[in-house]
C-alpha cells in the first residue's frame, strides 16, 4: 500500500471506460482496487465489473419483521394490559389487527430501507475512497490503486484511450 499510488482517469464514454477496465485488469490491477465514480447509473454488467452483492434486502426484511412485531404488540399485547371492551368486539379482532399489521410492517420496511441505504452508502468499500473531480457532467471516473512499477503502463493505457484527465487526486473531505 505504501508504494502504491492512486491514479484517476476521467472518460466521457462508457465504451472507453469498459475498455480501460479490461486493459487495467490485464495489467494485473484487481477489481477490488478500482473505484468507479459516475454522474449516471451504469450497471456493473455494462462496465464489465463483477456483480455487486449488497446487504440491503436483508436490512429491508429485518425492518419489516420489526414492524410486524411492533404491530403485534400494539394490536395483540397492548389491549390486554388494560382490558377495555368496546362495541361488543373481541379484545383482539382479526380484521383490525390485519390492517394494522400490514401498515406497521410497511412503515418499518420503508424506514429501514432508507436508513439501510444511507448506512450502506456511507460504509467503506474496498476501492480507494476519494472524491471525484466533478459529478455534474456526463463523465465516468476510474480511480485505482496502482503499485509503483505499473504506473507508467497504467498512465499509457489511460491516455491512449482518451482520458480527459490523468492525475493523482488529493484526498478531500466531502
Amino acid at each position, binding site marked *: 500500500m505504501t508504494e502504491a499510488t492512486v491514479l484517476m482517469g476521467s472518460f466521457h464514454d462508457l465504451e472507453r471506460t469498459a475498455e480501460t477496465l479490461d486493459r487495467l485488469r490485464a495489467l494485473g490491477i484487481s477489481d477490488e482496487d478500482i473505484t468507479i465514480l459516475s454522474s449516471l*447509473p451504469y450497471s456493473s454488467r455494462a462496465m464489465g465489473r463483477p456483480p455487486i452483492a*449488497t446487504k440491503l434486502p436483508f436490512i429491508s426484511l429485518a425492518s419489516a419483521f420489526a414492524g410486524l412485531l411492533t404491530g403485534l404488540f400494539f394490536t395483540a399485547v397492548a389491549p390486554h394490559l*388494560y382490558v377495555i371492551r368496546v362495541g361488543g368486539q373481541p379484545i383482539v*379482532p382479526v380484521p383490525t389487527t390485519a390492517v*394494522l399489521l*400490514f401498515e406497521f410492517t410497511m412503515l418499518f420496511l420503508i424506514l429501514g430501507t432508507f436508513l439501510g*441505504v444511507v448506512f450502506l452508502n456511507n460504509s467503506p*468499500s474496498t476501492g480507494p475512497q476519494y472524491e471525484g473531480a*466533478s459529478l455534474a457532467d*456526463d463523465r465516468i471516473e476510474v480511480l485505482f490503486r496502482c503499485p509503483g512499477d505499473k504506473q507508467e503502463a497504467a498512465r499509457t493505457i489511460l491516455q491512449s484511450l482518451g482520458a480527459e484527465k490523468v492525475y493523482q487526486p488529493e484526498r478531500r473531505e466531502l
Partner: protein
Amino acid sequence: MSAMNEATGPVLSDVEGPAEMAAPVSQARAEEEYSHHLLLDPRPQEEMNRMVLESLQRTGREYWIVVAVLAVMALGGFVGAWIYQIRWGMGVAGINRPNYWGVFIANFVFWVGISHSGTFVSAILRVLGAEFRRPITRAAEMMTTVSLLVAVSFLGIHVGRTWRGYWILPYPNQRGLWPNFRSPFLFDEIAIAAYLVGSTLYLYLPLIPDLAMARDRTTGWRNRLYRAMALGWRGTEVQWHNLQRAIAVFAFVIIPVMFSVHTIVAWDFALTKVVGWHSSIFGPYFVTGAIFSGVSAVINVLFIARSTMKLHYFIREEHFDALAKLMLVFSFVWTYFFFTDFFVEWYGGHKIGHQITAIQTMGPMAPFFYAMLFFNIVVPCATLWSRRVRHSPVILFLIALGVNVGMYLERFIIVTGFLRRNDLPFNWGTYTPSPVEISISLGSLAAFLLLYALLSRLFPIIPVWEVREGQLAHTLRRFGRAWVPTIAELEE
C-alpha cells in the same frame, strides 16, 4: 430484403412509378423529426444541470410578491382562523348535530386524494416502465408531501380539543392507556404515517444525486444545505447500485401503501352505521377518485411550474398528453364506481337510502351534485379524446382545474350531505359552512401553494440524472425504410 421482394412479386413502387414514399429518410432528418420528444433530444448533462439550477435561483420580483400574498392568506386565513376556533370552540364552525363532521373532514379527504398524484406518477409509472414519467416525478412527489402535511393539519383542526390531539399517538403515558387500535382513526394514523414517511423518503432518495450535483455547483447557504442533505454522495458504483435497489423497493412497496391509505380513509366512513356511508364500494371508489384528482392536480402544478420556472425543455406537450390520457381513463373508472354506488343505493336501498339519493338529485345537494357530474364526467369525456386538446397545456390546465373542483364537490357531498339524513327522521338536519370554515379551507389552499412554491425553489425540481438515463436508453434505429425510437432496458 431484396430476396423477400422477389419472392412476393412486384413491389408497389414498380407499379405506381417513382413516389416520394419510397425515398428513405436519413437518420439526421429522423432525429430532427423526433426531437420534440424530450428523451430523443439529448443535451449534455452539464447544460441540463445548469438549466435546473437556474430555475432554482430564478426568484424574481413577481415570485416574491406571489409568495407574500400566499403567506398572508395562509397565516391569516389558515392559521389565524384556526387560532380563533381554538380559542372560542368548535361552535364557530357550522357543524351541529347530526352533521358532526363538516368541511374540515371533506378537506382532509380531498388533500389525501391529491397526495396520490406523486405516488402514482413516480411509483406506478416507474414500475410499469412508462418513460414519460422521467421529468415529472419529482414535481409530483413534492405535491404528495406538501398535500399530506395539509391533510394532517385538517385532522388537528377538526378535533374539538386540539391541544389534546396528541393523545392519539401511541406513547407510554400517565393515563396508562395505549390508543384504541380498533378505531378506524388509528388505522388512518398508522397508514398516513407510513405513507407520509414513505413518500417523503421516496422523494428524497432519487433527489440525492441531484443534491450532490447542486452541492458541487453552489456556494453560501445553499451549498451548506445541499452538503448536509446529500449524505456524502460520491456516485460510486456501489452507491448507485444500493440507491437503485432502494428506489426499486420503495416503488414496489409504496404502491400497496398508497392503495391502503385511501382505502383506510374511505373506511372512516364505510365502517360506520351511517346510511349512504356504509358501502363496501367506498374503498375502491375513493382510491380511484384520489388518483383521478391527483393526476389532474399534477397537470395543474406542472403547468404553473413549467411557465414560471421556464422548464420548457424538460416538460413538453408529450407529458401533458400522457397525463391527459390518464385523466380520461380515470374519469371512466371513477364514473363506473360512482354509478355503482349511486345505482345500488337508489335501486335496492331502504327508505333512508332513497333519501340519500334524493338529496343529491333533487334536494339541497343538487347544485353540487350536477356540477360534480359536469366537471368529472362531461368535460373530460367531451374533450380529452381530441389530440389537439391533449397537446394544449392551457386547455388541459382548465380541464384539470375543473376536475379538482368536481372531486372536491364529491367529497363535500359525501361528508356533509349524507349526514343530513339518517335512520330517524326527527334527527335530520342541515349544514352550512361558516365563514371560519371557508377561511380555513381557502387558507389551506394558500398554504399548499406557498409550501410548494418554497420547496420548488429549494430543491431541484427535475431529476436530471433520470432524464439523462432515459436519453441514453432512447435511440433511433432503422425499421424497414423508417427510423423508429427504441428504448433499451439499461437497469440490471
